[in-house]
């Protein structure tokens, strides 16, 4: 499940009604704004204001999980490796790296001249201290489990880091690009950084007014091409419709929406340019194969066959998205049609139910969170209606998001409509769910020795073609066993006013390309 707090403050009706109100009279011309005009005489890339619906919940990158917090951390801090716009791993603080022949040792050569925002040098001692602290349980860093293959970290000289691994780990370079493994100065503590962030990213914190705004200024110590913008202000406007009106009046120049209706109203009334970006996150009906009727594969297959994914997408999200299979990362994407029922097939569903001895139908309890993201309840209702035609009666449990997360974590559900965050590397995305030792395996409700074996192979292989084949196999097993019913991936909509240039949205929602953005 993806953590997006920015949708849950107000009922969707507020956004929808407001959007209609905006659409009703969309003839306004955006006025020019003072906030984006630099003072005369300064050479400047301008000041960009981004409308966001929620404040950051921490300024400490190792504990950042919420959408907006991660975005801010992404431009304040640096990582050993990074993603490019296609989510390929590229050099970050580490300029190059070598892998030993047995693939049990990884040597990073650090870039020279990397400095923290406070001007101090970032060297191998900082990298070692960061990786050691992330792996220390007492730090409670969220990326700890992703670095579990690291046995030790050595810093033979100021520009070299050597990682000794317990086993080859193809996903490690990708894990090190996550902002949850940001490199911090060995002198800094969580307490200090929560007050004054000190990273190696293209921006640094200028001012924070809790619940109002967070302003970043260009970090002139940044090792790469310096950011073009002078400042970026994340202005907290809790209601998305209000962000649209703020764009319309020129007070805000950029925002990222996930509701197509709101994006549409930004395009028409605020004359904004909208960039659609397919997300890694996927909408899914999670089935708990350890519970009741769902232990029978035929029941699960009947559910798969009775659901038309396109119809769920059309009715819940206005068709704005793509039907998907399990793996959503571009380099490993599953074929959505590779499953026992590529299209809805009620006869087959009835046949599977017959095989399960449930020809007269059954009742399925499905939980869904309300307000966590715009489409959740609509998806659940569409599924309910479709399954009813296959004699499967769905009892919906609509839960507040806190209650939902609690029950989700405790695997206390038969089936759950969820929006799960995707990862660029399929091992990161799924090994925690579908390996028997994965920390979310109880939530996934399914594992098998075959899957364990395939995940182990996928992790230890360094051959891209071979890995692609392995994750295809995993994807097929998941679909053939109807472990979950993968539905669709949706878009995010980056709205920018016409004076904003150079911003590239990414599938993992990262805003790292704020560093190439400029405003006229």
């Amino acid at each position, binding site marked *: *499940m993806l*953590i997006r707090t920015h949708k849950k*403050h*107000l009922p969707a009706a*507020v956004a929808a*009604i*407001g959007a209609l*109100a*905006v659409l009703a*009279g969309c*003839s*306004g*011309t*955006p*006025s020019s704004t003072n*906030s984006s005009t630099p003072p005369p005489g300064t050479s400047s890339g301008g000041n960009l204001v981004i409308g966001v619906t*929620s*404040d*950051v*919940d*921490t300024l400490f990158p190792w*504990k950042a*999980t*919420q959408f907006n917090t991660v975005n801010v951390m992404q431009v304040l801090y640096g990582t050993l490796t990074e993603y490019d716009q296609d989510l390929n791993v590229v050099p970050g603080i580490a300029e190059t790296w070598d892998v030993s022949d047995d693939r049990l040792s990884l040597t990073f050569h650090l870039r020279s001249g990397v400095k923290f925002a406070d001007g101090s040098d970032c060297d191998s001692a900082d990298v070692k201290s960061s990786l050691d602290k992330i792996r220390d*349980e*007492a*730090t*409670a860093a*969220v990326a*700890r*489990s992703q670095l579990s293959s690291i046995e030790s970290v050595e810093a033979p000289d100021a520009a070299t880091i050597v990682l000794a691994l317990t086993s080859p780990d193809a996903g490690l370079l990708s894990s090190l690009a996550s902002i949850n493994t940001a490199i911090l100065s060995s002198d800094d503590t969580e307490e200090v950084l*929560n*007050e004054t962030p000190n990273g190696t990213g293209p921006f640094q914190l200028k001012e924070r*007014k*809790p*619940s*109002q705004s967070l302003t970043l200024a260009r970090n002139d110590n940044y090792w790469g091409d310096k950011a073009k913008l002078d400042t970026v202000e994340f*202005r*907290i*406007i*809790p*209601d998305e*419709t*209000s962000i649209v*009106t*703020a*764009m*319309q*009046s*020129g*007070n805000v120049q950029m925002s990222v929406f996930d509701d197509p209706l709101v994006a549409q109203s930004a395009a028409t*009334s605020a004359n904004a340019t909208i960039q659609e970006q397919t997300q890694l996150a996927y909408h899914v009906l999670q089935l708990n194969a350890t519970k009741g009727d769902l232990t029978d594969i035929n029941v699960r297959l009947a559910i798969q066959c009775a659901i038309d994914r396109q119809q769920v997408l059309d009715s819940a999200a206005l068709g704005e998205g793509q039907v998907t299979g399990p793996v959503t990362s571009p380099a490993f994407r599953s074929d959505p049609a590779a499953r026992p029922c590529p299209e809805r097939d009620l006869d087959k569903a009835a046949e599977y139910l017959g095989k399960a001895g449930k020809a007269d139908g059954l009742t399925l309890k499905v939980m869904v969170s309300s307000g966590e993201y715009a489409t959740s309840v609509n998806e659940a209702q569409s599924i309910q209606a479709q399954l009813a035609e296959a004699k499967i009666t769905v009892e919906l449990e609509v839960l*507040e998001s*806190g*209650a939902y*997360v*609690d029950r989700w*974590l405790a695997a206390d559900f038969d089936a759950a409509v969820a929006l799960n965050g995707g990862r660029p590397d399929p091992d990161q995305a799924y090994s925690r769910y579908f390996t028997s030792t994965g*920390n*979310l395996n109880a939530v996934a409700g399914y594992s098998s020795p075959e899957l364990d074996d395939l995940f182990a192979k996928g992790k230890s292989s360094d051959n891209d073609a071979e890995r692609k084949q392995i994750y295809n196999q995993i994807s097929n097993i998941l679909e053939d066993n109807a472990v979950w019913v993968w539905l669709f991936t949706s878009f995010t909509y980056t709205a920018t006013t016409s004076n904003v240039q150079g911003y590239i949205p990414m599938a993992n929602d990262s805003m790292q390309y704020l560093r190439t953005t400029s405003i006229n």
Partner: protein
Amino acid sequence: MLTRIVHSSITRRLVTALGTLFGVAVLVFIMLRAIPGDQVTAQFGIESGALTPAQRAALESYYGLDQPLLVQFFSWLGNLFTGNLGFSARAHLSVAELTAQSLPVTVELAVITIVLSLVLGVPLGMLSASKPNSARDGLGQVVALAGLSIPAFLLGSSVMAWVATFWGQNPNGQAFARLTDNPMLNLQQMILPAGVLAFGIAAPIMRTTRTAVLDIRAKDFIRTARAKGVPKARIQMRHILTNALVPITTMTGLQFGYLLGGAIVIEQIFSLPGIGRQVLVGIEQKEYAVVQSTILIIAVCFVLVNLLTDMLYRVIDPRVRAL
């Protein structure tokens, strides 16, 4: 003797108020714990499922969740008496500092709203009452009904959209300006939300005014005044309105008290960093101390407003003074 009565009355009030506040504290504490999840799951979401027991224990101890509930309650209560309202890990500020920023915003919004509601509600009520069941009464009633039945979020979103569409303006899209920093922008940012709230609050004030005026008008002393040839305007203002002020004050005090609790929806729509949003964000992040202390502050405000209203009766109505 009189001093004793006054003292005992004040003491009684004080004891009642403290009892109420303690009740609020206990209730909020229990309700917050009854909500599923805690600060760890609120911050980490499903990633908290990936935390090892040791990591989880470290976080619980950081947030003070490892203590038994009774210890948590009394240590929070004890801290209140030393002026320590708690700390928000999210904002990295103490609750006292947060409240010092948010309470003035809410108080300002409440004051402007009440002034606007009175300006709208009292004359409208008097107008309605001046000729019951006439067209003007009907008009007043319709306006009041609209005020009561149009939800503030709908009116708020629509008004904001219209202003942005037709005038290309949205003062609330700019960074929030404090009254002391930029009074002009601050008033621009306050006027729309206050107007929207006032439309809703003017309705009960209008209805109360109408009923009170009709009630007083039927009294003998008004007939006597009329018979004595007192000018009509003087009867309206001096005899009727003055006497009708007591129920209007009660209603206004009540509404003002509610407004001080923070108009959460309006603060959300118009991006006002008031006390309602402080509570809402606190609940979302499960920052127990923030929510408990803030709600207690709101309760104190409510009690104070009630006390002030009672005192106002003494100013307005000599009969109360005489008691």
